[in-house]
């Protein structure tokens, strides 16, 4: 993504990380995805895999 300077002469390339930080919905996705996968889903899978006592 390019953005022009105030003079309109030289395009400035916005770094990828800044584009990520400037997009609240990408951040929302990351903030849900990471803990959902590593904490909740992984944790529930471990509980589900506990053998049931006969």
């Amino acid at each position, binding site marked *: 993504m390019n953005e022009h300077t105030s003079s309109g002469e030289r395009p400035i390339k916005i770094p990828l*990380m*800044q584009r*990520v*930080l*400037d997009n*609240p*919905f990408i*951040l*929302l996705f*990351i*903030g*849900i995805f*990471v*803990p*959902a996968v*590593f*904490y*909740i889903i*992984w*944790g*529930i899978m*471990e*509980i*589900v895999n*506990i053998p049931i006592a006969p």
Partner: protein
Amino acid sequence: MSKAQFRTCPETGLQYHKQAEMLIRAHAVVAVVILLIGGIAALLVTLTRWPAIHLLPADRFYQLLTSHGVNMLIFWIISFEIAILYFCSSTLLKCRLATPKIAWLGFILMLAGIVVNNAAVASGTASVMMTSYVPMPANPNFYLGLILFAVGALIGCFVFLGTLVVAKDEKTYEGSIPLVTFGALTACIIAIFTIASGAIVLIPTWLWSLGLINNIDPAMYRVVWWALGHSSQQINVAAHVAVWYAIAAIVFGARPLSEKVSRGAFFLYIAFLQLASAHHLLVDPGLSAEWKIFNTSYAMYLAVLASMVHGLTVPGSIEVAQRSKGFTKGLFEWLRKAPWGNPVFSGMFISLIGFGFIGGISGVVMGTEQINIIIHNTIYVPGHFHATVVIGTTLAFMSLTYFLIPTLFRRQVAFPGLAKWQPYLFGLGMSVFTLAMMGAGTLGVERRHWDMAFTNTALSFDYPASAFTLMGIVGISGVAAILGGAIYILVTVVSVFFGKRVESESSYGFDMTTLSRADPLLVPDGGHEAAGKWGLAAPGTFVLAMFFLVIFVLYYAVNWKYLASVWPMS
């Protein structure tokens, strides 16, 4: 541009959208009322855990502990945080609030949830404490109240996100959103994860309490519940750090040392802070060591790193601002000459120090699987989270309140002498309270038990006398801190409802005005480093950070040494 109505505060230049202003006020007032209820419960709980007094019978103790936990950790904090979200979006971005009617619906749902939950607890049929672990049943309205509140708060979060979209669409700001708003966005994202987790666990539990579901697996419940229970406190961390940055800018005109670094630290919160919930489950048998260690000792440390970044950059930015104003003698003139009589600053700085030195260091110890076992589920745990949530978050919110009373409510702060001392009484009282709790927890004093002496029980345990002394200190310092909290409520209520009006020419009736911002600090010749020492722009903060690191390493090492004595091996 919409025809929304705005007013500009003549003193601060802040611009309030009328609907946003009403919503901020409503959420803040409800939050303070809840703080009063939770504070009364806190007094009674403290006087019961003080062994020499031991005030309440067991059933009342657990009832009030439930009320204290839910009102303070959920209702007070999140109500105030929704106010902060609206302030950081509509006010700081100078734009109208998205969908005010839906925002009011969210507020009504939150209020209804608070009433329903508190009624259930007051009836004596829901003394299950905040965790409400199954299969211990509560009155269905206990869960229903929490669900209603959560839905209302979730609506508030999406109104905040919608307001960011409105601001971008209507071009009320250029480039990136301000750092304080970015901190609020971080809090909002963590809140959405938290509330979604709450829905996953509480809706089935509510149905179970109604008899519509036969069984809730306790192990499963604990995993998902802590994504609500602990992450809700991570909303606080992001929110109060945003408040620190805001107060540094308000009081000193400070700018972040590095926007990139500070935003990067908030990003680490977004991705990793919520994983720390796992430290509550470190002795649960159904979860693997890999899950526990990844979620605590590895991923959580990235969030700890972020907290240390904020702990460095906030005082660092204040130091740079002070040095630019000429407070350059020695390492700490900038700090000595800070406005310690201004509760907006003093509360914020005590919050920062208490959160870092007490809450932060103890949090890392609790997040390390091996040394966690020394203090797991002892009164050390509430010692830790009273340092983070009460000294860190609540005190930061109290400080912000002293700023908001004149600018938001247009009233003068009542009892300014009391307000000046309130952060010291509250912050220092709570610091002693948390340290004594941690000391007692290290000696094994249990977390929630009504009677640490185990009077007339079949199985007893003899604590060392020092444990009883420490719990006595918990009682005394707790009462002092509660007195500080009562002063805050007194000052706030009298100011808002009976305070003298701040005279101004501001009024509603015009669509948009220009927000007059404070001029940025001038960079001295040679850069900010020229006003510092050793080539550093903030040498005093650097020394404080090194002092923090030494305390951190020593305490961490002492705990490993203590672990060796707990489990002697030959």
